[in-house]
């Protein structure tokens, strides 16, 4: 309850400051849209040459991409703490965070949130509706709830991985270039995993489980029953990874060395 009111207060503060920089915000939303459009065009170009990718049709892959955009938008809005090392460890802002009576990760999420990213959800849902209507997908009454659970699971997978990477900064304060690499690997989750070789498939499922952000949960909505087992694992993997990340974070905080003044 207390966290919810703090969250809402931060959101209203965020809106206030963002609205004073309207052009900035418009630019950011535009560049996000452009980025999503480029990815969509890429899929269309690939399918200009072929009808099927390992048994997946063009519209199915577009649907997966649309689904992927939704958890990714949530991740981008709240857990995109790629600059954690520099901002909080090297500059010592973590000192300030640790003198306040709220969980440190929660505070950082509140300070670093970028709510504009949430527009990606609208794009994603639009893409899914477009692809879904061409695929003649039928919806049951419970599917919106399943969708919600899958989206949260997928967002937690992303969040878990990025929080884990951020936690490394507590042990080593040298700058790492893992974060940009992780964005690229994350994109692999947007395509059906059976187009990759076994090793990559294994990594995307169990080590860096980005497949649970796109293809696995989408398989449920596409009625691909052979993947249902993985589809229903999505929330489990999401919560497990996020829980591990929080545990690592909490251990990391005790190893925090502070910035030397």
């Amino acid at each position, binding site marked *: 309850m207390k966290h919810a*009111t703090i969250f809402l207060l931060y959101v209203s503060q965020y809106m206030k400051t963002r609205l004073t920089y309207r052009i900035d915000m418009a630019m950011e939303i535009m560049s996000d849209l452009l980025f999503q459009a480029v990815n969509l065009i890429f899929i269309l170009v690939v399918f200009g040459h072929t009808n099927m990718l390992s048994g997946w049709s063009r519209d199915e892959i577009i649907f997966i991409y649309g689904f992927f955009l939704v958890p990714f938008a949530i991740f981008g809005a709240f857990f995109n703490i790629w600059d954690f090392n520099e901002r909080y460890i090297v500059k010592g802002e973590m000192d300030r965070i640790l003198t306040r009576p709220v*969980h440190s990760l929660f505070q950082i999420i509140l300070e670093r949130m970028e709510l504009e990213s949430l527009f990606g959800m609208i794009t994603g849902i639009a893409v899914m509706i477009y692809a879904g209507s061409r695929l003649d997908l039928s919806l049951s009454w419970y599917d919106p709830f399943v969708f919600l659970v899958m989206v949260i699971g997928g967002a937690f997978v992303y969040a878990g991985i990025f929080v884990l990477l951020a936690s490394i900064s507590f042990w080593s304060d040298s700058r790492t270039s893992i974060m940009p690499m992780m964005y690229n690997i994350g994109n692999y989750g947007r395509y059906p995993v059976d187009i990759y070789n076994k090793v990559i498939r294994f990594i995307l499922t169990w080590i860096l489980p980005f497949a649970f952000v796109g293809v696995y949960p989408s398989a449920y909505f596409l009625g691909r029953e052979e993947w249902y087992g993985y589809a229903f694992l999505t929330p489990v993997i999401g919560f497990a990874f996020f829980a591990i990340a929080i545990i690592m974070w909490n251990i990391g905080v005790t190893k925090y060395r502070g910035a030397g003044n």
Partner: protein
Amino acid sequence: MGKEVIEVQSLRKDFKSHSSRSGLKGAFRDLFTRNYKVISAVKDISFTVNEGEMVGYIGENGAGKSTSIKMLTGILTPTSGTVRVNGMDPHKEREKFVRSIGVVFGQRSQLWWDIAVQESFRLLKKVYNVPDDVYNEHMNHVIESLDIGPLLDKPVRKLSLGQRMRCELAAALLHNPKLLFLDEPTIGLDVLVKLKIRNFLKEINEKYKTTILLTTHDLTDIEALCERVVMLDEGQIIYDGKLAKLRSNWGEGKQIEFQFGENVTGDELQPLLKELDAEWTPGDRPNVYVANVVNEEHVISEVIGRVVAAHRITDIKIHEISTEEIIRNIYEEGMLNG
């Protein structure tokens, strides 16, 4: 003796830092086996602070001040030793613990840069979960005494350093903590703002019995506020006691500097101070000697009288020893018999 607010028992903090070998070959060897060097920033210090005390925590850069304050505020985990602050273990019960303390780091802002000061206060009020009536009563007083009413609707980035610092102090006191940590709160401020801040700190100390631990490079802050000082050097406490005692052991008295008009030696001068509470130290130029004497009229005039009667002098200066000088002396000589 009042209630103990801070209890520190053989507190220690070691940092492991790896030293890289030189050259390309060294870099390759570093990949596999690293040379670690353990640096102890704080070496087994112990002290206690009672409720309502204002303690000056001083030391040179790198003496371990910041590191020990960070352990007391729960930011860093001690390597060994125990810390109890407000009856809690700062690191283990961090979220509960930090509610009972206020922190001002002079070089680091607690306030949000882009939003108005009062919006920052509103966020902090929520974070600390302060009820409206308590907040209003307490903060109206704080805002008035720090004279920051007119600044409340300005964003922090538009404030001057002095204005910001007063707002920082108000923010740290928003939840009316019983214990306040101030790390360089007056750095870079002009005299008027310093005075205002000092008066305010005295006032809350009297009104709420707030315990204050203050680190600063500006010893006039400490002279104005603290009865007690804890002095650190190379991670160890080298003095813990009354500031007045420090002054009386090391600085009570005056220095009379004589510039002699002829060549003199220490042996020649020695008999002049016989039976007086005074002693010679050589000055920094040839034929300059300084008589360190107790601050008593008859001794001072006796010394001057005897020296002038025995030797030709070209100049006399009488100095009061400042706290700064005392502390410099202590660090230079590295020992303390008090």
